[in-house]
């Protein structure tokens, strides 16, 4: 790599307004990590363009000079997807933050990538509409990042992921061409390339405009809180709700450690002696909700809930949810550091997986709180540790890695909504054999033949996997040999 910081800054200062180019060491430090602060790298330079045309100029230049480009949205990502490249440009899209249009008749909003998730719903509210995906970082995270990660939230079972709620994206290719994928109708021509772009972690192009689907704000929402003496019984209650034909808007589970932490933090009114609680929300018209919440209550009681409460009023409903939505920071108060995992498992494996996580927790000597999007099988174990204790971060990472490999072994996946980034790149080797990984690399090469966009993220090289495999196959045995492989 020949180019130095000063001469690169001079090039970009010719191209962009001076406040778009950040190159002094002390000013670069705030950009050295995203939401996964355990990984840090100082980029060669940070660019903060104001316009799509400026993004095009930057990419054309980087393409010509073969300079790596890492895109960054709000920097709230939890897998290190926006971890800078030491010899590359960190391209922040935060200033592309306009809501271009709200089309209330067709229930669509056209927004720039730097628009915050919650701001879309705020802009749609006067029309009685909202944007459904609600990752817990929704106050801060931006739509561009949501597209890059295919972000989820607590309402995915009924309303889907980002990919179900984005109809069109405009993308700048690595060589600076502006292309539109998807359609404002219900389908587009040719291969559905939007499916590849959503969740591609900034590896295929830079998203500069997004058209999202808006939904009518439901007339009423109501939530039931059920307490259980046994986590496994809570898991069975989830299956029972689904079996009875109910599709809740939200269905969340918290184990004892996480619910106690949340109760201490926000006083949500959770029963602190319960082994687990379930929050089940239904939404729709007034009469529909009244009818359905009574059914939910009965199913929960019949499935062995010790106690079921429905929110008395909107304030109590918000309080029940506040506990869940603040679960991560609440658990964060229990230890100096926590490490948030993001596996997905078939729901019927929940009991087994939680028992095994409990055993691992003892083995590693680190506590683990579990928060679970029970409706869609997305599990967030939060491993508590203290980075100031020698070797504890490494232990937490190894514990986390084992959890993810367990998720794969029971037929699930290493990441449900946070992305692979740099964090889970080794576990990709556990999930995918070589031909699949080769295919991913070949797909990337179609969009980015010189591997300039977010290089080294999301898809491990086969060499890396060979090395990782050698480390992890002890005495010729895979982990969890007792489990049937899927």
């Amino acid at each position, binding site marked *: 790599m020949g180019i130095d910081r000063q001469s690169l800054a001079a090039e970009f200062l010719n191209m962009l307004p001076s406040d778009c180019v950040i190159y002094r060491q002390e000013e670069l430090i705030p950009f050295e990590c995203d939401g996964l602060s355990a990984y840090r790298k100082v980029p060669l330079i940070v660019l903060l363009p104001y316009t799509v045309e400026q993004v095009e100029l930057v990419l054309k230049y980087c393409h010509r000079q073969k300079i790596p480009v890492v895109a960054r949205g709000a920097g709230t990502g939890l897998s290190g997807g926006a971890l800078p490249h030491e010899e590359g440009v960190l391209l922040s899209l935060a200033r592309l933050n306009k809501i271009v249009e709200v089309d209330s008749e067709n229930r669509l909003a056209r927004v720039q990538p730097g628009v915050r998730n919650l701001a879309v719903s705020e802009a749609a509210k006067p029309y009685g509409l909202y944007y459904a995906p609600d990752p817990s970082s929704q106050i801060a995270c931006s739509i561009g990042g949501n597209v890059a990660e295919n972000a989820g939230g607590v309402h995915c079972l009924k309303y889907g992921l980002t990919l179900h709620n984005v109809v069109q994206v405009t993308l700048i290719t690595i060589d600076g061409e502006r292309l539109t994928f998807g359609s404002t*109708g219900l389908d587009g021509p040719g291969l559905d390339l939007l499916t590849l772009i959503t969740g591609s972690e900034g590896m295929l192009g830079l998203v500069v405009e997004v058209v999202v689907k808006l939904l009518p704000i439901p007339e009423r929402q109501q939530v039931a809180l059920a307490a259980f003496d046994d986590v496994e019984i809570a898991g069975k209650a989830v299956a029972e709700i689904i*079996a009875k034909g109910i599709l809740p808007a939200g269905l969340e589970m918290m184990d004892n450690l996480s619910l106690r932490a949340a109760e201490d933090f926000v006083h949500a009114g959770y029963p602190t002696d319960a082994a687990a609680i379930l929050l089940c929300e239904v939404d729709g018209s007034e009469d529909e909700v009244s009818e359905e919440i009574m059914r939910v209550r009965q199913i929960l009681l019949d499935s062995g809930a010790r106690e079921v409460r429905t929110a008395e009023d909107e304030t109590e409903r918000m309080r029940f949810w506040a506990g869940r939505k603040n679960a991560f920071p609440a658990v964060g108060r229990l230890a100096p550091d926590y490490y948030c995992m993001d596996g997905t498992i078939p729901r019927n494996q929940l009991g087994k997986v939680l028992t095994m996580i409990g055993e691992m927790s003892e083995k590693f000597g680190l506590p683990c709180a579990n928060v679970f999007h029970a409706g869609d099988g997305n599990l967030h174990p939060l491993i508590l540790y203290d980075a100031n204790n020698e070797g504890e971060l490494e232990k937490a990472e190894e514990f986390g890695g084992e959890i993810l490999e367990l998720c794969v072994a029971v037929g699930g996946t290493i990441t449900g909504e946070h992305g692979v980034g740099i964090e889970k790149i080794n576990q990709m080797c556990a999930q995918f054999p070589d031909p699949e990984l080769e295919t991913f690399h070949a797909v990337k090469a179609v969009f980015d033949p010189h591997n300039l966009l977010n290089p080294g993220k999301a898809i491990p090289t086969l060499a890396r996997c060979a090395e990782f495999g050698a480390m992890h196959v002890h005495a010729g045995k895979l982990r969890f040999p007792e489990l049937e492989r899927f």
Partner: protein
Amino acid sequence: MSVDQDQSTQLQSSIKDALAEQSSLRLIGSGSKDFYGRELGPQSVLDLSGNRGIVSYEPTELVITARGGTPLEEIEAALEAQGQMLPFEPPHFDDKGTIGGAIAAGLSGPRRPWGGSPRDLLLGIKLLDGQGRIMSFGGQVMKNVAGYDISRLMAGAMGTLGVLLEVSIKVLPKPVEEHTLLVDRDPDAATSLIGAMIADSQPITASYSLADKQAIRLACSHQRLGTIRSRYGLQESTESTGFWQQLRDHKLDFFQQPKTLWRLSLKPTSPLELTEPCLQEWSGGLRWLYSERPAAEIRNLVERQGGHAIQFRNGDRSGDIFHPLHPRIAGIQQGLKAVFDPHGLFNPGRHYANY
């Protein structure tokens, strides 16, 4: 009745034979959508109908996994027995169709705006690619962001990227009751009334509009239907729910014309300056048009509104059937074809010429 059978190994060797002979293959399930797409030259047929059977179905997981050749009818019967359904309501042309074909064609029925499309509901696949490799992408869980979403890319790819040996699909509870209401208004007033009902979150699951007949399907109890009827001043139709099935399968009289049938996909409120009548579904998002106008004229009209047009049935099938692509996007598509099918084995030219 054929028996359940995993034919991946046989199909894999057929691919290897074709590679050795440098021939190409026409993929066929039940053949119900043979009419769809561009005309193919003489080709060996790769019959996928024997690779069939439900591999796993756990109603409480809301996922079904089946081999590509499994008849839609068989899948729907299994789901029905558990009070569930394929939310995209796939068409059964000629009363046939396989699940692999339904995904590959990417077509949805009247429920699509409310239930989702094949790409929305496809969770995972086992793919046999053009090098004879068997690979798995996605899985059986709803949230999965590990690696690029290769499975969903297969929905609507017309079998040009590989053989769908197995598919895992999200299923949903089937409404206990559905009813049809007639919207007795002139077309414009009906469209805006349906729009208002959607904005009010009424449980609409299908819409139909042709000339002076407008109808909607609602998933609700009879009691609730009464409330909705009086709120919006609507009449219950004497039409049975079978009407929607006929619409889905193109069995209505409208679909029996000998002319060229166009499928237009647009933003629901987009105006189209046409004198021919359009049958509309999806509250205006999908329009069926019989017309002998030149293809370019129809495509231009639709494209100006940000939509796209497919020459669905009849007419000359040697030119463009699917909407022409931006040259760079066509290039990306070609690049992806080379990743999955580098020797051009599968359905060459059926989706786009030279692809």
